[in-house]
């Protein structure tokens, strides 16, 4: 492992007293004051996240849409300029290369936003399939990203941006001047709350970050680290690559079927395998469960039923908004039934859990 990469906000995090950790090759803040406190602040008011480590790949030219259609499982022809789309990107096996957001910036111009730890792999994968009149450019290093999440987000952002945020609906975006900086303002996020993701030139991220912290002061805005980002996305059952998603699991098994457009006109990588799996039925499914016995499930713990192995935990945590110990994991499809009682093996002991509905947390929509 070489030197860790640093975002342009690194110094500011340290000044705010953040505890820094390695994540996907980057030195990132895991927490500022405490994971539970930061988590609750996002649910109650708002939180500010540095997500500049995420990768951005610019795909441009008449061949851009055909390339994207070949690479992703969802249908990018559905989006117009100013819209974003979530999609898995698969191997021929149906296993997942990464999950990503597609932003349509122009007729023939798209941004793919990918996971930090997968960025180089994704870039190579995309380049390997490049064909026709299209350029593929990794613009991650010069692009900063800040997420503002929580019910007060719109009020906060509206103080320092020049566009009417009311007009930006879920999974839409617009260009704006925010704190004097050209930003792409997108109504998306990874917390289960309303909020925005802002993209700007990396070197201008500190200006936007500082202005947002100031604008949000009276609204209860706090900086939030990767620790609470994980517990927030977990409660909202948003999958995390390396946990719920990897090269073994398919989007159908992961419960992401609505992002797999098997009927789109173009052929896409993994289609054959996914069609087959859909016809035959998935062998395992991602489920959410609640611990009945005392214990916290963690990634990698085994799941059993009547002493027979049926699967594995992919994420688990004390859920701060719900006050319960919850988990996500893959189990054999026959056992993936609501209210089914399963056994999680924690430190060689079998502890009882029950499969429950997900997402564990759903915000009340006004």
């Amino acid at each position: 492992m070489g030197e860790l990469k640093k975002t342009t906000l690194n110094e500011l995090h340290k000044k705010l007293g953040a505890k820094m950790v390695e994540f996907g090759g980057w030195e990132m803040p895991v927490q500022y004051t405490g994971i539970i406190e930061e988590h609750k602040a996002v649910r109650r008011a708002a939180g500010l996240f540095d997500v500049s480590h995420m990768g951005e790949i610019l795909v441009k030219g008449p061949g851009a849409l055909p390339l994207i259609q070949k690479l992703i499982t969802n249908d990018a022809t559905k989006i117009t300029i100013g819209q974003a789309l979530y999609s898995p990107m698969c191997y021929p096996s149906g296993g997942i290369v990464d999950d990503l957001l597609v932003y349509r910036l122009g007729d023939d111009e798209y941004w793919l936003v990918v996971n930090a730890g997968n960025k180089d792999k994704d870039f190579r994968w995309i380049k390997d399939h490049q064909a026709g009149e299209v350029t593929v450019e990794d613009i991650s290093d010069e692009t900063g990203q800040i997420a503002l999440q929580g019910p007060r987000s719109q009020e906060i952002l509206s103080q320092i941006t020049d566009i009417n945020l009311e007009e930006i609906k879920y999974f839409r975006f617009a260009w704006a001047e925010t704190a004097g900086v050209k930003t792409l303002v997108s109504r998306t996020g990874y917390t289960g709350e309303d909020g925005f993701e802002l993209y700007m030139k990396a070197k201008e991220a500190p200006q936007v970050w500082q202005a947002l912290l100031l604008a949000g002061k009276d609204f209860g805005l706090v900086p939030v680290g990767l620790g609470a980002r994980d517990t927030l996305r977990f409660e909202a059952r948003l999958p995390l690559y390396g946990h719920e998603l990897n090269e073994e699991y398919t989007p159908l098994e992961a419960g992401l079927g609505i992002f797999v457009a098997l009927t789109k006109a173009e052929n896409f990588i993994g289609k054959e395998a996914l069609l087959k799996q859909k016809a035959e039925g998935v062998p395992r499914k991602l489920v959410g469960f609640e611990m009945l016995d005392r214990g916290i499930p963690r990634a990698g713990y085994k799941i059993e039923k009547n002493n027979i192995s049926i699967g594995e935990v992919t994420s688990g945590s004390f859920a701060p908004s719900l006050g319960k110990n919850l988990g996500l994991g893959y189990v054999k499809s026959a056992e993936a039934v609501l209210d089914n009682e399963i056994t999680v093996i924690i430190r060689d002991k079998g502890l009882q859990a029950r499969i429950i509905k997900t997402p564990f947390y759903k915000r009340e929509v006004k």
Partner: protein
Amino acid sequence: MYPSHLKYTREHEWISIEGNKAVIGITEYAQKALGDVVFVELPELERKVEIGEAFGVVESVKAVSDIYAPCSGTITAVNEALLDSPELINQDPYGDGWIIEMEISELSGDLLSAEEYEDLIAQEAE
């Protein structure tokens, strides 16, 4: 932050010794490094443990951490308040956040004074 009447281990437990009784917990440094403690697994009463044996587990939101015995002996009491309020370990690691009480049969030969422990964590912080 590191009371001088306590002894410390290199694994960040503290031990308070009175006669043949010991009270054991984790240090200020340990609770801070762990972050919000959300779960504690306590040993059974009368269990016999050896020096260096893991007798319990403290879990924070992100981490699972064993607690090691600074002495051999028998568990005589456990802090049951931690079952419902594990955050006591964050709030008061040397007081209400104590973890177990033991009857000592043998003490570890490698216990540190407060001063030695502060030197150790100063090195770890580097």
